[in-house]
């Protein structure tokens, strides 16, 4: 059960959306070029570190719950997600293991070759790097507005769909990197993660991926 719960913690959520009024659907040719550019940028990412601010929106609350921290990715699949405010909590994805540090209390979960873990890892890394364009896994919709390109992913896997109705990635038009991730659990409730101060391909000491 513990493993399952930890796996579920990684599963993000979504819903059917109504595009914003100012959003326009991209044309087929725009989509082809956009995917090509994102894949190119994503391919060049050896390391990525970024600050993030997370807003948990629950419709019945008067304010979103705000938390913030740092995220570090090193190819091919090392990822550290660290919350600094309002609590110290980090989670590391490393070689089939999830390492957790909850206010100094350390634990590890071995997820081995779990298929679902593979999917989730790919999903998180894909969300950050932008390369999530897997038509077999998702129904994908492309929109643009004045400053950004917005892609919406609806999982085809019914198990995943129970937890994630939709993932929405917002890309900066200038450098084709992800600036916001929005995970919908339902039409009313979602998690919005804004990425800031992104640094690409800086040297990162891989000891940060130890718990």
């Amino acid at each position, binding site marked *: *059960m*513990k493993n*399952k*719960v930890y796996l*579920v*913690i*990684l*599963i*993000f*959520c979504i819903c059917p959306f109504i595009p914003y009024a100012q959003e326009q659907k991209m044309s087929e040719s725009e989509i082809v070029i956009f995917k090509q550019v994102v894949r190119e940028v994503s391919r060049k990412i050896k390391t990525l570190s970024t600050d993030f601010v*997370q807003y*948990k929106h*629950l419709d*019945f*609350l*008067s*304010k979103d*719950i*705000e*938390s913030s921290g740092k995220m570090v990715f090193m190819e091919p699949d090392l990822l550290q*997600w660290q*919350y600094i405010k*309002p*609590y110290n*909590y980090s*989670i590391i994805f490393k070689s089939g293991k999830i390492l957790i540090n*909850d206010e100094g*209390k350390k*634990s590890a979960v071995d997820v081995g070759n779990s298929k679902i873990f593979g999917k989730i890892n790919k999903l998180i890394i894909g969300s950050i790097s932008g390369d999530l364009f897997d038509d077999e896994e998702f129904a994908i919709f492309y929109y643009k507005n004045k400053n950004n390109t917005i892609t919406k992913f609806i999982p085809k896997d019914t198990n995943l769909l*129970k*937890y994630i109705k939709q993932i929405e990635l917002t890309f900066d038009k200038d450098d084709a990197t992800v600036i916001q991730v929005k*995970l919908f*659990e*339902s039409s009313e*409730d979602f*998690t919005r993660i804004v990425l800031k101060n992104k640094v690409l391909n800086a040297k990162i000491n891989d000891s940060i991926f130890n718990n």
Partner: protein
Amino acid sequence: MRKLTTLYLIISSFLVLVLSSCSTLNVVKDYKSVNLETTKFEVPYFSNPEIDYVYKANITVYGNELSGIFITKKINDTIHRVVFTTEFGNKLLDFEISETNFKINFIVDALDRKILINTLITDFRLLLRKNYVVKKQFENNEYKVFMTEDGKINNYLFILKLDNTLRKIIYATKRKEKINLTITSENNSFATKISIQHYNIKLRIELNYLQTQ
């Protein structure tokens, strides 16, 4: 015959006396019984519909540790909405609870177990309940204790005399303590730290208030 009836009455009275004293003795055995100063007690925590109550939750259950975010808000006169999410923000559990009703809006498969749900109903009713009818009162130098009766269950509310704040609730049957809920509060209106310790199962829930903005 009359002698027998008298004997029976004496024994019965004695038994009633012993049993009734047993029913409260464990929890408040070092406290003296005093006259009721009130018949109603209102818990001030979690009752302001304007406040989003957000806590970091750490749960230890049979040696396994889980953590996440506990969120609750009073959504009308009788109902609290309660959501438990992971630190990432994804929902594990979402329900509405009142003193008489319980409705699940969402639960992940891993937690969808009747025994777990029933435990949570008891815990959160105890945590979020506002009104109590006081039946007995006890005290020692430090605390006064209001005892309430709910069928087979007695709740003992421990009020610190120094600042008149509710610091502890013991949920017990006539014979046994079942749950011990302790509270650290600010200005008697806001609970900053809560601990819910079960005695019949190995379960402990700790909630620490999060200043999220």
